[in-house]
């Protein structure tokens, strides 16, 4: 497997508290990888290191054959804007803007004009079953609809990697299921690699592979399976 994104022996502490203590993880192009673990295990910190939001204290992060952790802040910001998409659990939509504005936002930030950006943003509405909601304010949406808008916004700029941190954490079972089905379908159609952080096994089960973060390290369940089979 040639990894598209990889963390090698990464360490990260917050003050005296270690969050990652030699975490290694790699995901291939188009792979959906679930990162599981209890609260405080370091799984979100790992996501933030992979996405270039945090710079590790030690270790390396690679993306598309390029060292990411040594890039300047502005280069990492640019990479996040052009190559990565993000879906979080809460509070990611801008309430003053409409649904279409929210989805088009990454395109505007990348310098695209309204004429090109809006049709591209609105093309995502029927794909995610939220057609007809383009002119609504985000405060008028249900939790599941809001997460699908967040997913559209994450995907609209055609990222190479989608980072999803507990994307269904605030939803009930059926709404969460719909969001996950659409996240998986959209990622497969676009060939996007997904790093899915979750503590819920039912959500992780959508992924091609699952790893567990425990005490700041990554336990690869696929590796375990090989060990057991052999």
């Amino acid at each position: 497997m040639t990894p598209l994104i990889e963390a090698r022996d990464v360490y990260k502490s917050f003050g005296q508290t270690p969050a990652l203590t030699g975490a290694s993880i790699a995901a291939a192009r188009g792979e959906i990888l679930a990162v599981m673990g209890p609260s405080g295990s370091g799984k979100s910190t790992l996501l933030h290191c992979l996405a270039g939001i945090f710079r590790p204290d030690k270790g390396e992060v690679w993306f598309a054959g390029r060292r990411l952790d040594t890039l300047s802040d502005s280069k990492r910001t640019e990479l996040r804007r052009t190559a990565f998409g993000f879906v979080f659990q809460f509070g990611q939509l801008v309430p003053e803007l409409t649904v279409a504005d929210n989805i088009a936002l990454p395109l505007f930030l990348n310098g695209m004009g309204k004429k090109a950006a809006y049709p591209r943003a609105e093309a995502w509405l029927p794909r995610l079953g939220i057609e007809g909601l383009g002119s609504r304010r985000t405060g008028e949406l249900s939790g599941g609809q809001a997460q699908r808008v967040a997913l559209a916004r994450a995907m609209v700029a055609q990222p190479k990697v989608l980072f999803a941190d507990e994307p269904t954490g605030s939803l009930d079972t059926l709404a969460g299921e719909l969001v996950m089905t659409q996240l998986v379908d959209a990622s497969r159609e676009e060939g996007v690699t997904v790093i899915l952080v979750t503590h819920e096994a039912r959500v992780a089960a959508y992924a091609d592979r699952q790893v567990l973060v425990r005490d700041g390290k990554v336990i690869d369940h696929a590796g375990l399976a090989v060990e057991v089979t052999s």
Partner: protein
Amino acid sequence: MTVPLTLLGLLEREPSHGYELKRAYDTYFGRGKPLPFGQVYSTLGRLARDGKVTGGEAEPGAGPDRKRYAITEAGASEFDAWLTSPIEPEPHLQTVLFAKVVLALMLGRPAEIYLDTQRAAHLRRMHELTELKSTGSLMDALLADHGLFHLEADLRWIDVTSARLSSLAEMVRTS
């Protein structure tokens, strides 16, 4: 799936021949594991003996059994009681996995790896069921959901046990 009670339920819907019952059972409940004809007729025989169904007279025609079966009042009453009563919740404490963990700790074996391996197996099965939900019918999806919720409950137990292993090891060593 309890075959006799399911057949009673199908007969509650309408009197049927054995082959019709088999076809209905396989369609709704078989899920790739058809009910053998022999089991259909032996079950119907026992239900008739116990007064829960009546067999009627054999009808003319080909085939091993041309009887049309109908549910009796006793059969309907049993079916109703089964349908409306909750299944006994089992405490699940003495599961194979629990025994493995305790034995591993007693023997100084790596209990955490056993739990991780079990978690991996559970997640693989959950992934298969999740795939089935996206490709199968609504009935497949509902059955897959049932499996997923049970596996998820097991996984929670595995996670909590994994987090408590050192305390459990201490207890096993000192008791």
